[in-house]
């Protein structure tokens, strides 16, 4: 038993903290938010050269080895730095989806590009009318003369504007009708229209319209079956890494708030000496401790290959509301100060809110947890 981090994890954490505090200051994050691309190619290459993008991908596929727990340790730091990058979507979400459900051949073909950062993948899942109700998905893929013809509109596609490939989830028409498939779609295919959405979180999201887009038949990488279970399972690593980014952001929000409470003087003393302010800080710290340990636990179970559907859903479900509470309390302590765009705290607040619905909103997660808890009553 060990409910802490290993020495290697501490080292990874420290080196990420050191590097990002130098290379990814809040000023850069602010500038990137205003930029067209939304992230720094230079930093992206540096992350690749450090092996960060290959974490969780076995060496035989060009990765750096390691597991989800390693990715989680790193994600706490990228979240702490509010680092804008396609890491979560390309590496943690798509990379791990590929690793868990495609053929050996496809892994060998696709993963090295992800691990080196040279190829950017993005998951095209949610649609204008689905939210996280995946049963309502309308995008269709029909097999015609050796090609799947994909038609439908996907929303909230992360970094779709720079993606090389989409992993598009669509209903398979034809002989396996009613099943969901995971399709590899070249982003440069004719019939694709990409529009950036204006989203609050500094995490670029796009609408991607697929109009009769052709993908070779072998690009149906995985048959996800008729219910959402296999898809949800494939999304688990992404969910946990998202929770870890939220934990990192919440850690930063707490630190910024504590620092402010210690130095802001009102009525002749630091506001942090007032109990009303102290209690907000202790609530933040309490929520943060909880978020962190449940995220670590879910990541550990996932890394060990243990059953963890409930644990992963609970980690994200808890982070969703706990991190929002942390953001709110931080703002209460800062009062008007963090209402300003120039303040660092609001950067984290926007991210926490956006993260809440990324890779599983609370309603969706509640369904998963309820099913795991067998809240369906006795038969009869």
């Amino acid at each position, binding site marked *: *038993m*060990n*409910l*802490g*981090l*290993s020495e290697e994890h501490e080292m990874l954490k420290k080196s990420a903290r050191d590097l990002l505090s130098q290379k990814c200051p809040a000023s850069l994050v602010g500038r990137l938010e205003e930029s067209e691309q939304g992230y720094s190619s230079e930093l992206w290459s540096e992350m690749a050269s450090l092996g960060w993008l290959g974490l969780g991908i076995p060496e035989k596929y060009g990765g750096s080895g390691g597991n989800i*727990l390693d990715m989680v340790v790193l994600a706490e730091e990228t979240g702490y730095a509010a680092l804008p990058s396609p890491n979560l979507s390309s590496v943690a979400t798509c990379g791990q989806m590929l690793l868990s459900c495609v053929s050996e051949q496809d892994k060998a073909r696709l993963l090295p590009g992800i691990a080196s950062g040279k190829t950017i993948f993005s998951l095209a899942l949610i649609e204008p009318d689905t939210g996280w109700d995946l049963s309502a998905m309308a995008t269709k893929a029909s097999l015609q003369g050796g090609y799947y013809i994909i038609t439908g509109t996907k929303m909230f596609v992360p970094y779709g504007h720079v993606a090389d490939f989409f992993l598009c989830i669509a209903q398979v028409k034809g002989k396996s009708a009613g099943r969901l498939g995971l399709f590899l779609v070249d982003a440069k295919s004719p019939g694709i229209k990409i529009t950036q959405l204006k989203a609050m979180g500094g995490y670029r999201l796009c609408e991607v319209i697929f109009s009769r887009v052709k993908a070779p038949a072998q690009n149906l990488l995985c048959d996800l079956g008729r219910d959402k279970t296999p898809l949800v399972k494939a999304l688990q690593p992404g969910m946990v890494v998202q929770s870890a980014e939220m934990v990192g952001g919440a850690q930063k929000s707490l630190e910024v708030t*504590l620092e402010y*409470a*210690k130095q802001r003087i009102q009525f002749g*003393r*630091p506001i*942090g*000496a*007032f*109990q009303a*302010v*102290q*209690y907000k*800080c*202790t*609530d933040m*710290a*309490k929520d943060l*401790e*909880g*978020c962190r*340990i*449940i995220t*670590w*636990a879910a*990541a*550990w*179970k996932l890394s060990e290959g243990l059953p963890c559907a409930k*644990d992963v859903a*609970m980690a994200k*479900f*808890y982070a969703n509301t706990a991190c929002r509470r942390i953001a709110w309390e931080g703002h209460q302590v800062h009062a008007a100060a963090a209402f300003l765009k120039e303040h660092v705290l609001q950067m984290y607040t926007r991210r926490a809110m956006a993260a809440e619905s990324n890779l599983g909103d609370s309603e969706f997660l*509640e369904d998963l*947890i*309820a099913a795991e*808890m*067998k*809240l*369906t*009553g*006795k038969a009869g």
Partner: protein
Amino acid sequence: MDLNFTEEQKAFRKEVASFIERELPKDISDEDDGDEAWQFSLTFAKKLAERGWLCIGWPTEYGGGGRSLIDQAIFGEEVYYHRAAFHSVVHAGIYFVGPGLMHFGTEEQKRRILPLIAKGEIRVGQAFSEPEVGSDLSSLKTRAVRDGDYYVVNGQKTYQSWARRNDMTVVAARTDLEANKYRGISLMLCDLHSPGVTVRPLNTIDGLSHLDEIFFDNVRIPRQNLIGAENDGWNNLATILTFERSTSGLRVAGARRRDFDDFVQFCRDARRGGKALCENPFVRHKLVEMATELEVLSLLAWRVFWLSSQKIVPSTQASALNLGAKEWQRRFVERAMEILGVYGQLEPGSKGAPMNGRIEHLFMRSFGLSAAATPEIMKNLMAVRGLGLPRG
């Protein structure tokens, strides 16, 4: 990170669980405060002790099992989960008074007292709170005056868990009236069977009587029972309270988990309008939230046990656990009462009471959650010691 228990630990957990299931009579409730239950619990504690389980995480030279704190936590969790009779009476001795003595008691005290606790022969408590002194403990007024080889103690302590079932208690008394209020306090072990000690039960709104008052009227305590140096009791007292907080996780991972599991099962079985209660989206939502929060707390509990087993003082984590546990308990009973609706008001023993009135009982008991340190005091401590905020 590694949440695995060793094969040995898993086997130990199973052994404890099946022993309790076998030995515990169905008609003895964990909160029965009657004499029959008490007699049973005395025997039961000795049986646990004979197996070397009661203080399995203590060093062998003091009568313990010499195993790790992880084993002690496994034992505690199982005992609480199975509602083994009266574990709360022995809790203080095993989890914080005993460990406190191990930290700052004399060798003679350790050898004299600790094996008796480990064998289940005596029960010990702590006597800190007074009628006029709760959160502001350092203002305590109970006096102890030196008289040769004795201290003569006068004063009154209150809200003492199961004092009438205890044999000894750690009294915090003022030994120097002139000193700064933190500097004149001493801790001493008092034999509760001594002349001059009167214990009076208090009745609480949860229908039980487990809190007592203790009156000290010229009680003579031998000097050899002084714990730590004279006038230097404040820090030791704080350490005992820290141990107490660190083990609150046992109740979370054991007792609270059991209450919740039973309630979820009730919601699966009970039918309203032809459907299982748990299928109602309003009920389901609450159950999912409670389950998630309880999972977080159980993990925090184990994080605190593990840190303690590594000799790391779990400061922020223990505070987070303690605060979270109190909040959870309150939210749990409130939500459970909402779910039970009109049935929730029925008391244990009433016709038609769901879960034999367990939720009603827990609901009333939740008003006593602040009895051992209010959440506000916990937050004050956590703000200053854990987060480095300036003192208020």
